[in-house]
């Protein structure tokens, strides 16, 4: 599974305009090479935002019993146990890095051009003064159109209040000058909070360091090149990954769904004209009929 991000060398990174984020935008850098899978972010998120527990159950998917982002789960730590070859046995020669066990703390990407925001018919989903994307709970009427409108599968309808929920990037904490709960609680600084521009510069440095240490596959997911293209113009919450995006359940080339709205309006209007003309000639009284 080849993709451009993994094979890109650090010096070839596009330094001009990797994201469409405004200068003051804040976001997350989630560096998966530092994640130890402690799930402190999941717990801190639930504690701060007063989110109910998930169902208790074992999935059998490594240590991941959370499975997915949801209405009451705004951070989700994925555990990817990688086996070499087709025989299911662990490799005996590992990369000079961690192990073949990848962990990623997934979160809402707070897209620069957000599909959920553009789809929302009530105006409940807004862009805040911090350039984050937030669902106003007093406006949302639970139509559910933001669910399929998100290329990353982030918003979800709650079975309790039937409204859509997702990460707010701790809007209330930002208002008080605090960093989001997950970033605050992360013991390894795998989750870093800050200005998107600064985080991107830091991420580029980190990718170069990693590649210098032999992790050739390290790359940024969430700039315009990988993960933030297709009209999304970059992710304010982006990641450093070391394997193809699909391994982390992330699409390699997501696209802003609303890019297709205007063109499909036009084809529909064209068809309406054609069918209208067809109806005119079909329904007209024909001489001798």
């Amino acid at each position, binding site marked *: 599974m080849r993709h451009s991000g993994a094979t890109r060398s650090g010096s070839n990174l596009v330094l001009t305009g990797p994201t469409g984020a405004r200068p003051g935008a804040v976001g997350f850098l989630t560096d998966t090479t530092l994640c130890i899978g402690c799930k402190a972010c999941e717990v801190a998120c639930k504690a701060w935002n007063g989110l109910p527990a998930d169902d208790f159950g074992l999935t059998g998917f*490594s240590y991941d019993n959370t499975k997915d982002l949801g209405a009451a789960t705004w951070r989700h730590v994925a555990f990817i146990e990688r086996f070499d070859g087709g025989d299911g046995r662990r490799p005996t020669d590992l990369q000079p890095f961690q192990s073949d066990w990848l962990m990623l703390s997934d979160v809402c990407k707070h897209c620069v051009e957000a599909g959920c925001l*553009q789809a929302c018919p009530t105006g409940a989903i807004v862009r805040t003064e911090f350039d984050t994307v937030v669902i106003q709970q007093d406006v949302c009427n639970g139509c559910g159109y933001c669910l*399929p409108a998100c290329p990353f599968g982030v918003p979800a309808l709650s079975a309790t209040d039937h409204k859509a929920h997702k990460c707010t990037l701790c809007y209330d904490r930002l208002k008080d000058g605090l960093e989001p709960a997950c970033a605050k609680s992360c013991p390894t600084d795998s989750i870093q909070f800050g200005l998107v521009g600064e985080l991107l510069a830091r991420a580029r440095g980190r990718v170069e360091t990693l590649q210098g240490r032999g992790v050739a596959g390290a790359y940024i997911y969430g700039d315009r090149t990988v993960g933030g293209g297709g009209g999304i113009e970059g992710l304010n919450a982006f990641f450093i990954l070391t394997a193809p995006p*699909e391994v982390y359940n992330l699409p390699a*080339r*997501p696209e802003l769904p609303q890019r297709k709205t205007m063109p499909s309006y036009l084809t529909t209007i064209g068809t*309406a004209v054609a069918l209208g003309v067809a109806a005119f000639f079909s*329904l007209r009284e024909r001489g001798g009929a």
Partner: protein
Amino acid sequence: MGVGREERVGGAEDSSRPTPGAPRPAYERRWEARRDGGEGGGQSAGDEARDSYYGLPAIHRPQWNWLIVLYFFLGGIAGASYAIAGIARLFDDAESRRIARAGRYLALATLIPSPVLLILDLGRPERFHHMLRVVKIRSPLSVGTWVLTLFGGVCALTALGQAAEDGLLGRDTALARLGRAVPERGLNLLGLAPAFALSGYTGTLLAATAVPLWTKRALLMGPLFLASSMSNATAAIALILALTPGSGEAGRRRLERLETVATVAELALLLAVRGGLGETIARPLVTGRLGRVYRLGVLGIGLGAPLALRAGSIVRSRAPSRAATTLTSALILTGGLLFRYAILYAGRASADDPQATFALARADERRRT
């Protein structure tokens, strides 16, 4: 890998999604997914993890259900039958007036349940009016809300005018006076735009999402729903005329002409959409119950059989009998409902398949380079 995932995708539609009212615990679903995927396949978590994340969905599936299927069906008929009535009204013979009258009443009758279905589908129905606080051109759902609102007024006024003309409102009541005051011709032409928009926007609504099966052929979805709405509405009007006394053969023949055009267009568009999906994304329309509904119900009952009947009557160059019209109309309407069911639920199944999501992204990559 293939066997297990196919079973899971096929099974996704069978283990119907719990409604928001009665959710099943998520871990039960996880266990079912593991168990169903494991049967016969004998995969380990490692196998599943190799080219996706344990086969778990990469995007969230839409929660829409049969309420929306029914709305797509009725709303489509409402818009298209208004449009047909409006076009028929441009001609001034008795048959055209009969078609226009049936179309206008049908439009009102199918329009009335539409907002009810949409409001019932909301997570918070009491907040439906929040849809009316913004206009967002880029959101087909917002556009559709406003189109439905606008069309509702136009459709009601036109039906009122028609009822006054038909003497259904009495001779000198306030309603009858209001109905006679409706500027019929102007409204007729003005109403064509929201009427066509209502019957076609549903396709763009599905196209402007991340659901692979809906968005892969985004440009054809609006035209497909529009053509299908036209054939359904024509069939419904023909059915009404066939079942009411007094209508002549000429009207039936005209409606059949339109029906044939719309049905052929629908078939061509449907095959174009289906053909462009690719193997992975089209899987829900091939396997399992949905595959059977698509092949037998949509292609067979809804499109193939009516077109075959029509071809038969052309070959024998005989005018359609009342019975033949009734049968064709019933087939087309059944197919129209099944088409919306198949597309909606196949979209849900394709959203659940991470390989479909990744295939969409990879196809996009190829297209752009």
